[in-house]
């Protein structure tokens, strides 16, 4: 009898959860300092996380953060594992075919990063070098479209901070990344001191889109309107500026 009860107790610990309620499930990829990352004790933090919390306050729902690997962000959204993606996801034509976006909440360009002393005059000048990119990102599209075609070795990684790990160990010669992210997550740290940003600011719309927005499933017009209004509200009432200044010395909202 005791064993039976134990088995039932053990079995009920392993139950399927049904998703319901007024919580807003927000997907984040916490490997993208300073936009989305975790403190040592596991709390999500960063620009995206703070903006998400501010927006949730505006629309009066509770933010529940769900971690997700970057290249399965959109499939996870379509599988209804979460309601929105607030993780520096750029609004591009390709992505708009699958999901919907709100207006942008920031826009920063991408740059190429290589070791100091490497003369960079364009993609062809780093032919033969190994460049790491985040799988499923706009930078990967750019690298495959412009760098791989001229002979640069492009290696996709699961998470941006794993790119930095391999740059530090010497397996990679550089990366293409959002310039704010690479500054905050790599160049300002001890292992990034021998690397620098090269080349022009990349705003090419065909690859990089028109800024980072909040991703959601198609057909959620009410949620989209709510969040757009909330973005305008926090831009107007100063909370956006407060969060912006906490992480950056300039306005990331961009053009």
């Amino acid at each position: 009898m005791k064993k039976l009860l134990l088995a039932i107790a053990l079995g009920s610990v392993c139950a399927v959860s049904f998703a319901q309620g007024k919580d807003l499930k927000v997907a984040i990829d916490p490997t993208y300092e300073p936009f989305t990352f975790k403190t040592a004790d596991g709390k999500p933090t960063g620009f995206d996380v703070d903006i998400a919390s501010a927006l949730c306050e505006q629309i009066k729902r509770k933010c529940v953060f769900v971690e997700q690997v970057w290249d399965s962000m959109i499939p996870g959204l379509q599988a209804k594992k979460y309601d929105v993606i607030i993780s520096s996801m750029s609004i591009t034509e390709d992505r708009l075919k699958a999901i919907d976006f709100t207006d942008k909440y920031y826009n920063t360009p991408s740059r190429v990063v290589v070791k100091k002393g490497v003369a960079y005059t364009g993609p062809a000048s780093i032919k033969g070098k190994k460049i790491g990119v985040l799988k499923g990102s706009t930078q990967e599209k750019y690298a495959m479209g412009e760098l791989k075609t001229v002979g640069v070795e492009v290696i996709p990684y699961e998470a941006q901070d794993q790119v930095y790990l391999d740059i530090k160990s010497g397996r990679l010669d550089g990366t293409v990344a959002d310039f704010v992210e690479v500054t905050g997550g790599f160049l300002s740290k001890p292992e990034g001191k021998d690397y620098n940003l090269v080349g022009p600011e990349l705003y090419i719309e065909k690859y990089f889109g028109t800024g980072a927005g909040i991703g959601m499933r198609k057909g959620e017009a009410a949620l989209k309107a709510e969040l757009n209004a909330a973005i305008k509200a926090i831009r107007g009432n100063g909370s956006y500026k407060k969060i912006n200044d906490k992480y950056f010395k300039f306005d990331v909202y961009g053009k």
Partner: protein
Amino acid sequence: MSAYYTAILQGSVLTVGVSLCALLVSIVLGLAGAAAKLSGRSVLVALATFYTTIIRGIPELVLMLLIFYGGTIGANNFLEWMGSEATVDINPFVAGVLTIGFIYGAYMTETFRGAMLSIPKGQMEAAVSFGMGRMQAFMRITAPQMVRYALPGFTNNWLVLIKATALVSLIGLQEMTYLAKQASAATRSPFEFFLFTAALFLIYTTVSLVVLRRLNARYSLGTKRGTL
């Protein structure tokens, strides 16, 4: 830095949880499968054989990805088709437990089948002649003896199952391996964190071995081993 280690230790609780729940599922499936294979009815035997053959032919990772990514979409499509508004979210814990339980159910089927076959048939006949029902005979005669015969194979399966839980990190469950990977990328020191996680796994397998050896001794009381 030490906060990362504490987080990994907390993740180890999830690892133990996944492995124990998966063990439960695999024991249930193993008993069912063994019963099916020994029942003699061709449909059941064919089903059980199909189950054990397919499982050994597909990697655990592929099965896990199929159930985690495909299963949620499939379940939601099914609910939509039924006209329900509810959404089911198969979280990584459940997906991991179901997958690992399902896979090791196949291995347990073989172990339990071998164990049941090792019990002398005369004992079943004697039980029936006493008027015991099928369930009674199973609980009183078959099950206790089966434990002794099944233990070596069971121990093996359990140890492999523990290690398979590391794969659940690849579908996003925040157990030891996942937290170690995140910590190592964030602090750029993978060696320390992965070594720590490996040591935790080693402790887990060693403790399991000790417990299962004790169990073996308890269930072998009264049996005689031939001396060489």
